[in-house]
């Protein structure tokens, strides 16, 4: 693709709006060519593998940049106009998203201690640089509306995450801010410098219950778990009006747990707690999967096809917008896995036209009709032991 970023951005924005003439494949190839020419960090990455646009015949061959690389290289087309940062724990602290999403607040975390980095220098924070936020905003709002507000409603929206003023580098806070501005009818933020405001949130929820006003609760999974613990401590049980819904993101990240648990089991447990504490059924609880390094997100399409969660739950299949494509990659060979096998998720995201379109995540998943089942992140590949552990184990 020749031309400057504004013209590339315009074509992608048209694609997102459904008004463009490009096919996904054609636009993806054009974006790759544009990024190869205009993103010096990405070009060096491609050259390290002997790849350039002339040697790529299929979309799956476009060199993907692992999220770890965002910690070391500036990967932007032209001059950066915006910067988001990961929390610096992705890759060691678990969860399913690598963006700056705190458990309950700004100052504290209840996560397991992260493993020490083997590298003495470097912040450990991934940086997503881009010329502008326009593509992020367009992509995030469009797919959020489709998956979380498919009725086209505007809802009272209560946010369990810090606002952008507190976390200017958080892509999640930025996205939730747009949702509050564009998709909400009242509501606000319930995380401050001091953490989650349990009483104020409880009061807002009770107010909605009394008024029969459906609400959307959105925030980090860890913040929801924190609030459910508060409900247990205080005996609070709320029956939110029908139509209320929940959107959580982050999965296990920042959640203290005694034993390893699968992401699916954990998520099912969170939604059972949501039903107990808030009266929101599992088929109105939507998990979002996103990360700082991607400007598009993936959602459980439960509000679109309302699966039956009363018995044995069907797997939640994450669905991306039409301007993304996901590949499942064998982590040993870096080739696509055979059908049905678990592998690393690699996404092509046209909304990343200003940075890197092809991103190799550290998340594992399995391809499924219409999307993929997220298996979570190997937060730490566990050591196999035959040396003695002296620590607290003897105490049980």
């Amino acid at each position, binding site marked *: 693709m020749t031309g400057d970023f504004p013209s590339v951005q315009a074509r992608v924005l048209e694609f997102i709006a459904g008004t463009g003439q490009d096919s996904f494949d054609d636009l993806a190839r054009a974006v790759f060519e544009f990024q190869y020419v205009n993103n010096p960090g990405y070009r060096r990455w491609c050259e390290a593998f002997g790849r350039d646009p002339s040697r790529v015949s299929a979309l799956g061959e476009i060199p993907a940049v692992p999220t770890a690389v965002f910690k070391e290289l500036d990967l932007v087309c032209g001059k950066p106009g915006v910067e988001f940062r990961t929390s610096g724990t992705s*890759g060691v602290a678990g969860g399913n998203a690598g963006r700056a999403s705190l458990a309950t607040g700004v100052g504290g975390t209840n996560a397991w201690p992260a493993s020490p980095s083997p590298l003495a220098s470097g912040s450990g924070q991934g940086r997503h640089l881009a010329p502008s936020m326009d593509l992020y905003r367009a992509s995030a709002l469009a797919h959020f509306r489709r998956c979380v507000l498919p009725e086209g409603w505007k809802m009272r929206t209560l946010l369990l995450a810090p606002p952008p003023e507190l976390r200017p580098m958080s892509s999640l806070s930025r996205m939730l801010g747009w949702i509050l501005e564009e998709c909400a009818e009242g509501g606000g933020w319930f995380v401050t410098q001091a953490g989650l405001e349990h009483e104020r949130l409880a009061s807002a929820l009770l107010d909605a219950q009394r008024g029969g006003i459906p609400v959307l609760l959105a925030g980090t999974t860890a913040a929801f778990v924190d609030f459910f613990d508060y409900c247990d401590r205080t005996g609070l049980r709320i029956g939110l009006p029908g139509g209320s819904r929940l959107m959580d993101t982050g999965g296990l990240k920042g959640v203290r747990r005694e034993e390893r648990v699968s992401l699916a089991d954990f998520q099912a447990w969170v939604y059972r707690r949501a039903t107990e504490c808030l009266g929101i059924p599992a088929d109105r609880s939507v998990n979002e999967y996103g990360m700082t390094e991607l400007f598009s997100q993936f959602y459980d399409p439960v509000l679109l096809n309302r699966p039956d969660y009363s018995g044995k739950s069907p797997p939640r299949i994450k669905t991306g917008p039409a301007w993304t494509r996901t590949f499942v990659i064998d982590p040993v060979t870096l080739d696509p896995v055979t059908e049905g096998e678990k592998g690393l998720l690699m996404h092509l995201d046209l909304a990343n036209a200003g940075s890197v379109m092809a991103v190799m995540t*550290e998340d594992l998943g399995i391809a499924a009709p219409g999307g993929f089942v997220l298996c979570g992140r190997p937060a730490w590949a566990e050591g196999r032991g035959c040396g003695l552990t002296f620590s607290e184990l003897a105490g*049980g």
Partner: protein
Amino acid sequence: MKTFLLPPGVPDPPVRFRQAGRLELEYPETTPALADAVSASLIGARPALLELRTEAILRAIDDAVVEWSAPGSPACRAAEEGFTAATGIPGVTAPFLPLLNALRPPAIRDWVRQEVKPFGALERFSPAEDGAPVRAVGPRLAVHVLPGNVPLVWLPTLAACLLMRTPCLVKPAADDPCTPALFVASLAKRLPELAAALAVLPWDGGDTAVEESALERSSAVIVYGSDSTLRAVARRVPPDAKLLAHGPRYAVGAIGREMASPGRIEAVADAAARDALLYDGRGCLSLAAVYVERGGLLEPAETVAVLGRAMERASADLPPGKPDTETAAVTQSWRARIRARALAGKPSAIFAGPRGLDWTVLYDAELAAPAVPLVRTLWVGAVGTLEEIPSRLAGCGGTVHALAFSGPEPRRLDLAERLAPAGLTRVCPFGRMQEPPLIWPHGGASPFKRLLDWARMER
């Protein structure tokens, strides 16, 4: 191939079959009731075990070792087949034969004499150094939750339990499904008292009902595994039972500037590569990192290239197994990160095999404690002097328990002195890391010292 062995008197359970590569493995339908029946049967066998002479037990162990060490031993070959089918790692027999030899007299007798004083106290009251009669008594029942990373690494502790007259319930690991039943069968056929006091019973990890039942009657639990496995088992250990938890540990190496020269470094590099890749790099003694001292004829960045070539050669002799998806994913992430650091102009470099994750050398001059475990990966760091190594490892929380060293003897002693307070329990030359002597207190603790109770007769 059978994965279990029950003591006589316990009825045969229903079985199911699982395919592992070309092998069909036979598993019992393990229920809490079966685990409880096996435990009860083993405890019932203890009085007869207590009557056995130490020499008889040593002879039984020796006979089993001789059987397994014989060229073409069917049992040994079958165990290797099972291990390879489950892990993809071929040719593990030869490396573990030295371990077996260490369990033969006189080595095993020397080991026990060093650990248990007086030696005779394992059989009856015997005079201690001060003349007072003492008696060493082992646990009533020990449950061994075995590792799957290195075959037979658990055998010395099992042998120690038998010498303590402790019946043993053994849970094999999924990655080494056949070795325990085969070796225990070799022991059991020597003496009926051993046959009655030994059981191998697999169950699915995480089956809490079975696990609770299996552990309920135990008075000692020996568990090998990841931190989460250890935590899960530790929570279910009876309050009065003793726990030996063997968690993740790894080894590092140090190369002094005196060795960093052409003609000297190549042999060190070959030995280091073998230490890193033997058992697919999955052992607790697998070399995870090497720190190279600056100031030699070769700079650390040049030494790394030599290590890369050595890893390529060693990989041909020690081909890879099947890495698990999670560890492979983390390995790829670190490969990418180090490659990106090199592209960004930082003092980093990556050397890697042409196929998949056959081998990797990750160099970062400022390497602190390495990220572990990765698939067949050797981290390399540079240090101004060897004395910097303890501070580099400060963040690893004492998980480094062994050091391979190449350099002048006084410097080896000095570095060992500095690392011992941080949990170091073994220092050896490169190339010998995976051949620990039996006397090495695995992970820093002797099973005799941890599990024996002592009775003392006062005058």
